[in-house]
């Protein structure tokens, strides 16, 4: 049965999208299941070898010439077939939605860096970061709940991650403690808990759970997260802020808060998906024009889930 969108959600999405046709395209695609993307785990196998192996059982393509590790499975799959394949159990690939790969592409992790992944579980982006680091440097992967840590840990083992320290702390608490020491990171991924409006295709439950109060509550929490996270960054360090939601309160509003209160600048992004500019006004709130540099990924622009990415550089160390 087609889940029903709440009137307030429809109103907000109409306001975000440019016209009725744009909204109808959005409304059509969110009721279809997402495509099956995987990411080759280059810590264990090369994209060319994995592609050759998987092509023997599925129709596989590599849609992005500059990112051979990203593969699309075009075959009709049985439920659980991707997760139960031997190549998956051996950690040769990670099942990951294409839009969620964008935050790590924006972060651009390199070997020998010191990186913090603040809300790491279940580990799709964490393992993608480590692939970029080639298991060198150090990644601190943090999450809060023990059950989520168990999933994270299992995924890191499966992918052959050796340079990671898993910590279990509240995100604000961990940043507060780190900021009182000399420890500072080259890069931080802040992929925050959000209202999940972008995940309607894979998780229709979001239709039922969504309400505007949650959006506002999360926005306040996300501003705290970014304020504390920036204190843990080296000068000239990079923080990527991402969500899987469309609501500006959880996206541009958080970036606007950072731009107005901390010594940061926002970077222009170049990602292999169609991105729309960030919004600069929302229900009477005005955001900095710089938030235009944020990247909004809509499901109907890319046949993907919805996502939001922005990249900040810290100009001077925060006290």
């Amino acid at each position, binding site marked *: 049965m087609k889940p029903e969108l709440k009137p307030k959600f429809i109103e907000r999405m109409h306001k975000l999208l440019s016209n009725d046709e744009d909204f109808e395209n959005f409304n059509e695609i969110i009721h279809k299941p997402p495509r099956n993307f995987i990411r080759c785990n280059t810590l*264990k196998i090369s994209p060319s070898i994995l592609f050759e192996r998987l092509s023997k059982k599925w129709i596989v393509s590599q849609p992005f010439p500059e990112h051979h590790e990203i593969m699309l499975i075009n075959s009709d799959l049985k439920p*659980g077939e991707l997760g*139960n394949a*031997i190549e998956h*159990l*051996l*950690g040769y690939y990670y099942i990951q939605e294409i839009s969620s790969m964008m935050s790590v592409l924006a972060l651009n992790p390199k070997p*020998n860096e*010191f990186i913090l992944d603040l809300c790491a579980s279940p580990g799709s982006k964490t393992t993608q970061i480590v692939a970029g680091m080639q*298991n*060198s*440097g*150090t*990644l*601190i992967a*943090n999450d809060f709940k023990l059950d989520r*840590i168990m999933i994270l*840990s*299992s995924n*890191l*083992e*499966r992918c*052959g*991650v*050796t*340079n*990671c*320290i*898993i*910590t*279990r*702390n509240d995100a604000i608490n*961990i940043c507060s*403690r*780190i900021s*009182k*020491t000399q*420890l500072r990171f080259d890069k931080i991924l802040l992929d925050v808990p959000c209202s999940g409006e972008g995940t309607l295709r894979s998780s229709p439950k979001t239709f039922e759970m969504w309400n505007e109060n949650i959006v506002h509550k999360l926005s306040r929490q996300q501003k705290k997260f970014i304020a504390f996270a920036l204190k843990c960054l080296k000068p000239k360090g990079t923080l990527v802020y991402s969500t899987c939601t469309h609501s500006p309160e959880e996206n541009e509003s958080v970036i606007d808060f950072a731009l107005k209160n901390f010594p940061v600048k926002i970077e222009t992004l170049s990602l292999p998906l169609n991105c729309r500019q960030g919004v600069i006004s929302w229900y009477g709130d005005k955001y900095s024009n710089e938030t235009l540099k944020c990247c909004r990924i809509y499901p109907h622009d890319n046949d993907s889930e919805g996502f939001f990415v922005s990249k900040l550089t810290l100009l001077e160390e925060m006290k």
Partner: protein
Amino acid sequence: MNLRFIKSPEKRIITEQLNEQFGIENLPYLLLESGKEKIRAFSGHLSKEEISKISQILNIESIGIYLLRKETHSELRLSFDATHILKNQIKNNIIDINKAQLIEWIRGRDVSINTDKGIKVIKYNSDFLGCGKSSGDRIINHVPKDRRIKK
């Protein structure tokens, strides 16, 4: 997590034992003990001292990857994933299995193979599939439950 770093003399003994069993010559990792007889390996740039300092302010759940377990008679059993990360060094005690045996093995079942007793690395084509313990006529399965193919 209670941190206990493996000191150089103990690491040398572990490396020698791995060399004797599998031909492994080099462990380019910081080793830590984790739980009963389990050793983890960390390839990050942080030193023991830096990790110890971090452990004083953060609640560390785990470090690096599960590498091996100390079995009885001082034998070492490499973890499922360690056989992969050390595959270029493993030369001895490898059992090449066939397709039918692979299907059994990856489902968590023992496989019937006549070989000498001890810990064996299981391999199918280029895939390293962890270790099993040979009793002489069968290899006891140690594939972790979350890595088995579900029926």
